[in-house]
């Protein structure tokens, strides 16, 4: 029976690879649809037609799009991301440090939001219908219903304007002590935690409630098991798959959240780099950043699917 699971997982992985190719293709083509000619943009208004033609030749811009795509893909495999149009620096060098910053932000947020959301989601499901459950549900619907930038502005209003605990902007360079570090990461992390946790709480609560409504849990209740024993010993082991699935899916919201949060707090991460690159129309930079985001997103949703397959006892 084990081979059935392996087959499904392998199939899911194959789909992920195909999807990745389609996504890369889409990113490449969307960015090469730019109106105006890259060569003339690079050379500026004073360029002679000969110079533009020469540069077009040198950059292989006259080649068919599919050839350029394959060349770009080949470069990617060699770790060559190309050079930025804006300042001729290699894209890999521009991205390197920024990527670490973004991963730090995402990592800290994950460390805080996963335990928080799981606790709230599971307890809300246990106390379904109580005042506590309703408060948690209403709050999470509220956070899901508003744009991320609004959560961020509310957090700034509360913590930086009224309470004056934290600075509104963050800049990693100034971190000298632990206190500095806390103050720098606090606002972006608080905002992201709200956004991610709201999703996670809703999905976790739904997963646990579904398990709690199955006949075998009812049986546990009927045989006289206590409420906490019923949830912890009987329901949770079976709800674990859906819960981990919910965690991975919620974490994929980090991708969208991080774009807004880095912009609003001026955090030197990869999303801010990409938004700036969009403003200056720096194609190689946009392509590489978009690719990293798509890759992260794809990894998370593929992981979520694979966990769902593995945790399904009927396939084991």
């Amino acid at each position: 029976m084990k081979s059935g699971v392996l087959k499904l997982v392998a199939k899911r992985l194959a789909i992920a690879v195909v999807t990745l190719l389609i996504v890369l293709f889409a990113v490449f083509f969307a960015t090469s649809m730019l109106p105006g000619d890259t060569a003339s943009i690079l050379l500026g208004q004073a360029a002679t037609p000969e110079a533009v033609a020469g540069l077009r030749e040198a950059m292989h811009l006259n080649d068919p799009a599919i050839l350029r795509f394959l060349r770009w893909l080949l470069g990617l495999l060699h770790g060559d991301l190309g050079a930025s149009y804006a300042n001729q620096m290699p894209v890999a060098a521009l991205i390197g440090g920024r990527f670490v910053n973004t991963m730090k932000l995402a990592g800290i947020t994950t460390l805080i939001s996963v335990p928080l959301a799981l606790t709230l989601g599971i307890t809300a499901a246990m106390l379904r219908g109580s005042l506590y459950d309703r408060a948690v549900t209403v709050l999470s619907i509220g956070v899901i219903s508003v744009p991320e930038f609004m959560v961020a502005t509310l957090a700034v209003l509360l913590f930086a304007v009224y309470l004056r605990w934290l600075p509104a902007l963050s800049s990693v360079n100034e971190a000298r002590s632990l206190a500095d570090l806390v103050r720098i990461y606090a606002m972006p992390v608080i905002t992201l935690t709200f956004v991610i946790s709201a999703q996670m709480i809703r999905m976790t609560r739904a997963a646990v409630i579904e398990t709690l409504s199955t006949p075998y849990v009812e049986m546990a209740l009927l045989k006289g098991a206590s409420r906490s024993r019923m949830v912890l010993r009987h329901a949770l082991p079976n709800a674990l798959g859906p819960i981990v699935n919910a965690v991975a899916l919620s974490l994929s919201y980090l991708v969208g959240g991080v774009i807004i949060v880095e912009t609003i707090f001026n955090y030197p991460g990869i999303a801010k780099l990409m938004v700036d690159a969009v403003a200056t129309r720096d194609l190689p930079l946009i392509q590489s950043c978009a690719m990293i985001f798509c890759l992260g997103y794809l990894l998370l949703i593929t992981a979520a699917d694979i966990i769902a397959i593995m945790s399904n006892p009927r396939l084991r």
Partner: protein
Amino acid sequence: MTMARAASSRRSFLGHSYNLVGVVASLVILAWTLVAIFAPYIIPHPIGDIVDDDYFGPMRQGLWLGSDYLGRDMLSRVLMGARYTVGISLAAVSIACFSGVVLGMIAAVTGGWLDSCLSRFLDAMNSIPSKLFGLVVVAAVGSSIPVLILTLAVIYVPGAYRFARALAVNINTMDFMTVARVRGESTVYLIGSEILPNIIRPVLADFGLRFVFIVLLLSGLSFLGLGLQPPLADWGALVRENIGGLPFAAPAVIVPSLAIASLTISVNLLIDNLPQKIRDRDA
């Protein structure tokens, strides 16, 4: 006993009963719709006019919502913003749901390679984070109202497709579908007269949810400066241009945020409080 009480707290309308939250939510949605339609006739000042000597002015008589970063009337700008936020989102969600649902039904009815190709392709589209897709398209073709509407629509077609296909596949296995096929009905008849009437209610609820996603994404893009371009301003753009007023909690930055929240929360609450009959996936 509890049944009777629950029934008495609900009102009956058009054959369905709605509870109080649902009624209030639909009133808010109705109000914003009316504002969006009649905005040009009810704004107290032209949106471009500078009417206040002070910027980020407080709320006072005549300038009910204060003034923005240039001293323009905030009330007029928020009312006009409703036009863009509601209008663009509604146009986008209509295109997305129409194409998604039609494709989904066709895929479910025909099956075979068309179904697998469509599903595979749209699943791949779904694996591009929505904000990122918006960013890349805006980088590529620039930002204008038609581009925004189309981009937002394209982003949400896969979701609408997946939802409609899942529903339609269930209907497709019913006996009356086999009967209709044996009668030799065309695909157009099958999806229009047999499947659509059976999935229309959950599809409409899904339409509402998708509308919320689109409003949020549009506001997010505008907030990043990649959505509607000045002098036009939707609610997200209003928050962006007035973000400088945040340190002194100016109404100019709070009011458009509240406008977005009131609309999206109302739609979500309305859908959550719809009668089970409408909301159920397998209605």
